[in-house]
């Protein structure tokens, strides 16, 4: 059994990013493969509706233009269902997709080494995936600490142009 106190061992740089297709709205799915050719940022997080001003997804929403400068798409992923994501995204005016790792619950998070078995939620784990579908950078934050965006932006800057 992994120690629930220590961050999970997330997939490291160099690994192929496992493909997936997850619901992004009640009737649409989004597959990682569809985004080939451009960098992708995957942000796993424990749950929708964490406290307002320190919220990780709200922060990423503020700096979307910075991600777009690198041509990158950012995707939030948690085990919350599509309707929960929709209410959360509406309330916080989020302008990027939230994916529901809902059925089988946490399956994608597990494949990235970013699932907290004891609580049944995703880690706060970040992945920057290059245009060829390879993990360029990954980071797992202590679950109570919002990791911010500095690591993501540094990793995007280092990607070959």
């Amino acid at each position, binding site marked *: 059994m992994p120690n629930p106190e220590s961050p999970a061992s997330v997939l490291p740089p160099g690994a192929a990013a496992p493909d997936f297709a997850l619901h992004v709205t009640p009737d649409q799915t989004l597959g990682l493969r569809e985004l080939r050719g451009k960098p992708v940022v995957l942000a796993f997080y424990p749950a929708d509706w964490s406290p*307002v*001003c*320190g*919220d*990780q997804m*709200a*922060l990423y*929403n*503020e*700096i979307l233009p*910075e991600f777009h400068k690198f041509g990158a798409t950012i995707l939030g992923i948690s085990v919350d269902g599509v309707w929960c994501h929709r209410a959360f995204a509406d309330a*916080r*005016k989020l*302008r990027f997709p939230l994916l529901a790792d809902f059925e089988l619950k946490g399956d994608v998070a597990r494949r990235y080494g970013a699932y907290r078995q004891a609580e049944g939620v995703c880690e706060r784990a970040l992945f920057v995936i290059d245009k060829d579908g390879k993990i360029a950078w990954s980071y797992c934050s202590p679950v109570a*600490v*919002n*990791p*911010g*965006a*500095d*690591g993501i*932006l540094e990793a995007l800057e280092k990607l070959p142009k």
Partner: protein
Amino acid sequence: MATLKIPVGPSDHVEGPDNAPVTLVEYGDYQCPYCGEAHPVVKAIQKAFGKKLRFVFRNFPLAEMHPHAQSAAETAEFAAANGKFWQMHDALYEHQEQLGGALYLELAGSLGLPAAALRKALEDGTYREKVRADFMGGVKSGVNGTPSFFINGHRHDASFDFETLSAAIEAAGGK
């Protein structure tokens, strides 16, 4: 551990001596209720530590969430350009529930600042870049929400109540 990437410099708003053993940097948003809660805590901390503490405030408006955060930050920068940053900063937090054009002009008037010049600066976005520069410097330093505090360059991830924050400042050499 996230660290402050932009050193304290001439474009910063600073209270307290340059040679103070501890520098506390806050990244804040004038419309954020948690920043509003932190405001009197910071005042009390400054009083308690006196000359042992240098306090710096930088803008981190979460403008998607808080529609008045950007204009309030630009108003504070306008006041700064006229030598009244801290007076405006305090007044904005003390009137956090009323942020908006009418309040800004009223506060400018009460601080003896030219209201017409403020209106023009807000319309022209004169201070937009300065606020954005603060924001992006914060993002690069690992600011992850508001308020975010850095004590001698290290992000303070614990709570910002008086006891916790003052203990962290003491531990950093402010005793």
